[in-house]
């Protein structure tokens, strides 16, 4: 920032304007057009369709007992799957980032497996394992445990599909941070547990929250794998995405889009949360007077990060 004038802070929103470049304008316009056409317009369509028959019809569709059951089940599944993957993700990222061990690259590959495999195949895997004719089918039947076509199957499938999100988010963060902080804490007499809670966790909290958000969004929105193992029993094993499909197939468009709009709303909330985190993430903003000065001009996380880096290097 080369200030010729006295270093007054610019009012927020006002920036130094670069000269107009036709190539740049064209690129930005193309990107915006694409976004509008393929992302914004469909989203808008969902809400328009949902509210097509008025607010009362919308509310009625949402408060339908079957819809409610689907909403509750979806929330339950996410409430189980996300904490499970949280613990797994942190443990896996910790192991991969901070230790050298045999089979490490295999573990990294395995974590990516759910991303590589089609969700339908993931669902079928669980049928093969726990279905009536599956490997554990006999045992489960003898003990009257229902996995497939029941809630446990849905939870398992969801956990499988959302497995990589948190670990994938944390591994680069933890690798970049190295082991110095933890080793310092240990040398100062902290136990492993204290080190984790007081040093490691605060260091990864933003990455972790971000991972949880993405994981949660996927857990609630998962269709393919859940569809295979759920059995589509209304009021029992129907999650929101499955419920939307059923309503749609019954030509009940208003209800289908009403429930869909809830899912879309959830996605929007997730995105809002994500951008909030990205805005928060350059933590130096809180700490650094430099960074605070930069904050007025640079809202974008990328720019903020670059600034913080220069501050760090300068000092």
């Amino acid at each position, binding site marked *: 920032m080369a200030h010729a004038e006295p270093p007054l802070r610019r009012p927020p929103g006002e920036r130094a304007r670069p000269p107009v470049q036709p190539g740049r304008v064209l690129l930005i316009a193309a990107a915006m057009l694409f976004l509008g056409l393929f992302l914004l317009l469909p989203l808008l369509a969902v809400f328009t369709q949902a509210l097509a028959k008025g607010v009362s019809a919308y509310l009625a569709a949402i408060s339908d007992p079957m819809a409610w059951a689907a909403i509750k089940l979806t929330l339950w599944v996410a409430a189980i799957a996300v904490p499970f993957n949280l613990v797994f993700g942190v443990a896996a990222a910790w192991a991969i980032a901070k230790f050298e061990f045999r089979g490490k690259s295999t573990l990294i590959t395995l974590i990516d497996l759910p991303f590589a495999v089609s969700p339908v195949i993931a669902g079928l895997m669980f049928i093969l394992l726990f279905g009536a004719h599956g490997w554990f089918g006999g045992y489960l039947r003898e003990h009257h445990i229902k996995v497939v076509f029941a809630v446990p199957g849905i939870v398992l499938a969801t956990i499988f599909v959302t497995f990589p999100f948190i670990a994938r988010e944390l591994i680069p963060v933890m690798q970049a941070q190295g082991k*110095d902080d933890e080793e*310092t*804490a240990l*040398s100062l007499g902290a*136990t492993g547990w204290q080190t984790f809670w007081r040093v490691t966790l*605060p*260091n990864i909290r933003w990455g972790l929250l971000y991972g949880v958000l993405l994981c949660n969004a996927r857990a609630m929105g998962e269709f393919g794998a859940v569809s295979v193992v759920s059995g589509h029993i209304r009021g029992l094993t129907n999650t929101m995405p499955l419920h939307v499909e059923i309503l749609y197939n019954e030509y009940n468009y208003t209800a289908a889009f009403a429930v869909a709009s809830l899912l879309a709303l959830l996605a929007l909330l997730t995105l809002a949360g994500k951008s909030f985190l990205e805005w928060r993430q350059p933590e130096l903003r809180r700490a650094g007077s430099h960074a605070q000065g930069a904050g007025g001009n640079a809202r974008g996380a990328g720019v903020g990060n670059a600034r913080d880096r220069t501050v760090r290097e300068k000092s």
Partner: protein
Amino acid sequence: MSIALRGVGKQFGEFAAVGNIDLDVPTGALIALLGPSGCGKTTLLRIIAGLETPDEGQVLFDGRDATSWPIRDRNVGFVFQHYALFRHMSVFENVAFGLKVKPRRERPSAAEITKKVQSLLELVQLGWAGDRFPAQLSGGQRQRVALARALAVGPDVLLLDEPFGALDSQVRHELRRWLRRLHDELHFTSIFVTHDQQEAIEVADTIVVLNRGRIEQFGVPSEVYDLPTSAFVHRFLGQVNELPVRLRDGRAFIGPIDISSSTDVSATAPDSIALVRPHEIEIGAEASGWPAVVAAVRVIGPIVRLELCAEGRPAHEPLEAEISRERFQYVGYSVGQKVGVRFRRWQVYPANGAAA
């Protein structure tokens, strides 16, 4: 606390980081582990800290076998090159960390912690910075916070891994002197790792020169500098000119200079080399020594460095000589001038290393 290593070795896969190391560090010593990167000096420091477990050998703390003690039981302060300050904590919280994680019975009261932390911050001249965050401090200030934090738990041993490596030379110089003073005041045992020979010579009581995972030489700085036991140590501690030693008719020569009178010719291998430091070169009139031409003159503060193309040596391998500024002003060499080179001191090594 005294520290002793007995036959310590550590492998990383196929790579032997350190091997068969014996070292005695008496209580209150300030020792530098010096060597090029990859020589195993950091591994050795981490073994002493308990951050690595040696594959063989023993680590003794005050004569007791500490090889398997975890780091938190060793009562060592460890300072990293990149400070490793907890970035989400204020400077005060960073320094207080070691006190706050103590088990409840041993933990001082909040008021005592505040007092202790404040006095440590004063000690490192950062009394004003308690509520700052690490990101707001300069590199030198951060490293002082890291030191205060390490000192807070009252360690018996202070271990520093390239503590000044990431700082610019001015700050580095200041911190070196400051560390030396701190050590003299507080009387703990300190071991620090560095690849900077000047830093080692300036700060340490004893220098341990490491090469390829082994100790090359051990001694007080002036002794290691003046009497290197190998060509490696000679080269590593300061600038050298490398000159082939030629044997002819039972006499030894560097260039045309006969060195037989001060060299054991019979013990000199045919492919030996002589190492001469730049300040050990004497420049005189053309006829007084090895004829040479001044190729470059560079004034560096109090000294003047001359590049000399000696007769019979390739032009791209000039001799480097250093003379004082005063002498330079008195004599006034200029590029192209013909001079004669003599050596005040030199040391002859067989081509493969150890002292002859």
